[in-house]
């Protein structure tokens, strides 16, 4: 059955990992969201939307990103939201949860000791929460099902 899948990842390592993990999914089911224009075009990912980049030190931009998440999710109405991080991905996961959309958090492989801050926040809003390290998954009752490495 066809699904609509929203893939949210900040520019950089989060984006690269999201692309690698979702390359096995049907391309026509995917909609990408990232924080840097030119990136989806460069990697041939479409359709896509660009949202504000934010981190824990930019509360105003985080609120802006929340607003963009609400608007994007209401417009796209995906069946599933996947994010590898960081804080913009958390915004989408949280809003998707309140809209009763299934959510998958995949913590970045860079978080080899403990879950990312955004991942910890996303834990309670994620239908499925994965770490790419078994010992990190075990810390928060998440699952380990493989890694991009």
């Amino acid at each position, binding site marked *: *059955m066809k*699904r609509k*899948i929203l893939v949210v990842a900040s520019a950089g*390592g989060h984006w*690269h*990992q999201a692309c*690698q*993990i*979702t*390359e*096995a*999914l049907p391309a026509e089911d995917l909609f990408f969201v990232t924080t840097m224009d030119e990136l989806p075009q460069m990697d041939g990912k479409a359709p896509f939307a660009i949202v504000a980049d934010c981190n824990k030190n930019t509360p105003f931009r985080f609120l802006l990103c929340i607003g963009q998440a609400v608007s994007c999710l209401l417009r796209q109405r995906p*069946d*599933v939201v*996947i994010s590898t991080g960081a804080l913009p991905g958390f915004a989408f996961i949280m809003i998707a949860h309140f809209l009763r959309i*299934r959510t*998958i958090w*995949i913590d*970045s*492989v*860079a978080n*080899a*000791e403990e879950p990312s801050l955004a991942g910890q926040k996303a834990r309670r809003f994620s239908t*499925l929460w*994965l770490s*790419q390290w078994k010992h990190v998954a075990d810390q928060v009752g998440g699952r380990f*099902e*493989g*890694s*991009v*490495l």
Partner: protein
Amino acid sequence: MIFVTVGTQLPFPRLMGWVDAIAARNALDVFAQTAEPNGAYRQIRHQPFVTPQEYDSIIADTRLIVGHAGIGTILTAKQKNLPLIIVPRRADRGEHRNDHQLATARNLTGHRGVHVAQSESELEAYLIAPTLESAFIEATPAKIALQTFVRDWIYR
């Protein structure tokens, strides 16, 4: 040139000392990002940090990366198809809080193009090798497992 990078969080003087000595013995062209504001290395070009723009132009000139076992470094080498030599940080030398980089290095055993050096002589052997295999984004069993699990979960 050879690009040495130790990430942004902690310096790694043991590695930098080795690289400086090896570069002197073998006349190697090295640029290093040291995370050390007062690094005093004589045989290599170095600076504490690089901007993202500098990083891109450095990578464009790089034929070989040497780094700590940081995930960012490993992903860069694989994406850019460059040979990678990693020297894991060790907690018993005060180089990190714990030995997770030794674990990361063990996990990378068998990844083509990723070469692990635990000593100055091992590092030197890799650095003067006439050819060194490049890293690349591999369809490893762990990656296929993750892709398959996510796909099956969504389309179950």
